[in-house]
Each structure stands twice: as C-alpha cells, then as structure tokens.
C-alpha cells in the first residue's frame, strides 16, 4: 500500500514537472532575447548613438591625437613624484578599505551572522559606500581637510568599501559549510572558526579581489584629480586645462606603466598564495 502510493506520487512528479519546466524554459528562451533587443533599440535612441556622426568626426580625433605626439619627454622627471603619490594613495586607500570591509562582510554574510539587524546594517553600509561615487567622497573630504593626496586617500577608501565588502561577502557565503561545522563541532568559538575554517577557504578570492581593487584605485585616483585630490590625476587635469596635450600623453604613459607594474606585482603575490596548491 505504502509503496504503491509512493510510486504513484513519484510517477506523477516525473511525468508532469519536467514538461512544465520545459514550457517555461522555452518561454524564457524567446522572451529574454526579445527583451534585450528592445532594450538595445531603446538605448540607441536614448543615447543619440550615431555611427555616421562618428565617422564624419573621425578626422578630428586624428587631429587631437596628433597634438599629443610626440609625448613631452622632459615632463617625465616632474612626474615621478606625483606617480609615487598615486601609488601610495591607491595602496593606503585599498588597505584601509580591505581592513574595514572584511569585518563588514562577515557581519553581512548569511552563513556567519544570524542577527538580521546586524546583517542588514552592514549590508546597508556596504551598499551606501558603493552608491556614492568616489568623486563625491573626494569633494566631501577636500572641503573637510583641504586639497591634496590625503582627501584622495580617504575618498578611495570609502568608495572601495562598497565593492570589496560585496565581493568578500559573496566569497564568504560561497564557502563549503562542512569544514565550518566541523570546527564548530569540536567547540571552536566564532572567531576561531572564522580564522581556521573561513579565511583559509576565501584567501585566494580575497587576494585577487583586493589586488583588482588596487588596480581600480590607481585609475580612479586619476579622476579624483578633477577635484584637486593630488597625485598624477591632478597633473593630468592641470595639463588638460593648459591644452598641453603632449604632456597629457606622457602622463598617460606613466599611468600605463603603473598599471602594468601593479599587475606584475599582484601576479607574483597571487602565485605565492594560490599557486602552491597546484605545485604540491
């Protein structure tokens, strides 16, 4: 008796459910591309996207780029100091952001924090810092502490919390829950289980995300130059205002070098931390 009803039930499940799913699946299959296409058309109209104007204006682009050539090589010696400042700003900004976002991410992670209030508060902070653009933070801090690299560093830290907190939090929520339960089962406290079961699992993505943010911050600091937040960005904005495009070109080259260097350094460090696994 029991067995029969059981079979009936499962029989029904297996004949009916997949069909429903398939219909839904095919429905979605046409709906989503159609939606995307309409959105595409709408956006093209909305942004005045026009290839013809672009083609007609192309000679002007060449003119502009021509003004940048050759780069002002004499300017390089004056760019060393602002370049170092930019690296320092990005480094400190990323470091502070990482230190603040990690605890925030733990408090925001569903699998580590049970209190809903605590979780939503930290999620709110993370989302807020991501919403406020770095340039707005820079304006706020420039008005508070004056021009220079200090407000720039503060702005980068604040805005980076948003991205790092979100990515760290996602990594924490994706960990394998069993090692965490296993250390809890031997009587580990919350802090201990984070140290011995959570951090080892998220370390690779933690390192990767932090370095990626450093890269973003080097480039973001360029824009912050607009509001006088120091570093090489300040030089760039200054050169553009003076229409000295050859100097602009040399500044771009310096930024390019910084980015490439940071990529090399992050590769080395990531290999040291992640690569061991592959080697052994």
């Amino acid at each position, binding site marked *: 008796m029991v067995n029969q009803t059981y079979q009936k039930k499962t029989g029904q499940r297996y004949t009916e459910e997949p069909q429903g799913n398939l219909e839904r699946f095919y429905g979605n299959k046409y709906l989503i591309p159609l939606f995307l296409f309409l959105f595409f058309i709408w956006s093209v109209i909305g942004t005045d996207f026009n290839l013809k104007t672009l083609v007609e204006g192309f000679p002007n682009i060449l003119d502009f780029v021509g003004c940048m050539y050759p780069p002002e090589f004499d300017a390089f010696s004056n760019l060393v100091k602002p370049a170092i400042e930019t690296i320092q700003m990005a480094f400190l900004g990323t470091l502070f952001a990482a230190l603040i976002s990690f605890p925030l991410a733990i408090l925001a992670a569903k699998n580590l924090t049970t209190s809903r209030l605590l979780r939503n508060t930290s999620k709110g902070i993370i989302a807020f810092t991501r919403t406020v653009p770095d340039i707005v933070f820079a304006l706020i801090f420039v008005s508070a502490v004056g021009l220079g690299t200090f407000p720039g560093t503060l702005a980068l830290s604040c805005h980076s919390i948003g991205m790092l907190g979100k990515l760290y939090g996602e990594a924490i929520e994706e960990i394998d829950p069993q090692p965490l339960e*296993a250390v809890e*089962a*031997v*009587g580990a406290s919350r802090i*201990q*289980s984070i140290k*011995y079961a959570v951090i080892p699992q998220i370390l690779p993505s933690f390192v990767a995300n932090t370095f990626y943010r450093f890269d973003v911050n080097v480039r973001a600091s360029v824009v912050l130059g607009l509001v006088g937040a120091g570093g090489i960005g300040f030089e760039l904005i200054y050169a553009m205002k003076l229409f000295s495009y050859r100097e602009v070109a040399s500044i771009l080259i310096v930024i390019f070098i910084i980015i490439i260097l940071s990529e090399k350094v992050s590769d080395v460090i990531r290999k040291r931390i992640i690569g061991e*696994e592959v080697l052994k």
Partner: protein
Amino acid sequence: MLTVEKLAKILPDGKPLLRDISFSVGRGELVAILGLSGVGKTVLLRCINRLTTPDSGEIILNGDSEPFEITNCNIRELRKVRRRIGMIFQNFGLVNRLSVLENVLNGRLGYTDALQNLFFGFSDEEADMALKALDRVGIADLAHRRAGTLSAGRCSVLLLQGRLCRSHICYLQTNQLLILIRPHQSESWAF
C-alpha cells in the same frame, strides 16, 4: 554515559523526522545506528552535539564531571560539551587549503583560549601532540601537505587523530566506514 530521552525533530516542511527516540549508551560501549538512507541517522547524531537543535526531548552526557544537559545549555557550556564529543562528518569537513597538521590541530580549538589563539595560534606543545598523533598512524611525513591532496582513507584517519587530540568521552561518526591502517597495534582507541 550518554542518555537520549524522547527526542523529536520536525523538518522545516512540517514532516516529523525523529519521533520518541530514547536510548542510552554506557562507558566503553560501541553502538551502531542502522537505517535506510534518509531515515534521519545523521540528524540524530547532529542533535547529540547540537549542530541541529531538536524540537523536544533531552540529551544528557555524563562524564567524569557533572552531567551536561546538551539540549538546553548556553553557548559557553555547549563549547565544553562539544570538545568532549568527537564527530567525523560524512565528507570529513577538512579545511582543504590548510595543512594536514593544521587540520589535526583544529581538533583542539575547543580547548584553546580564543583570543590568545587568534593572535599567537597554537602552542608548541599542541603542535607536538598533533605530530605525535600523526606519527601514531604513520602519516607524520604528510604533516605539511595540504589536506585537500589526501586520499579519502587518509582523510578519515587524519580526522580521527584530530578528534582524539583531546580527552573525548563520546565519539560520533556519520556513515563512513573507517578503514584504519594501524602500524602500531599497541595503541588502542577508547571509544
């Protein structure tokens, strides 16, 4: 020594999984819980160290010291109870990126002072103890390998050592049939 009294657990979807489970286990006894897959064996064991909270019933652990009522003790007491219960998970629950030695040491987390451990890690005596435990099962040479690179058999031996790294009085294991290779027969495990 371990007494389970009228234990009941209802699943989130409202179906009763465990109903009126009562049994007791004495010192030195070895007990096996048998049942079809999905019948609730793992849930029962998880209730015993309160990884899962039962809906009603009592679980009492009598050791050398005062009896613990596992079903309603606070976090501080729970930590004390848990360090006396060794549990081996179906999929081991090793931290794959940590070394074999560190995984054995994790078995001692219930004893270490949380703050001291946060800043200074484990003591030399504890590391020594863990190394000896590994040596006992003949895998001391693997101490610094990442746990993720071990075979399943070695995982279970390793975990057993980790859980034995303390004065346990009760030992739970979900499903895995342990295949133990013991080079030194002189050592015996107290279940």
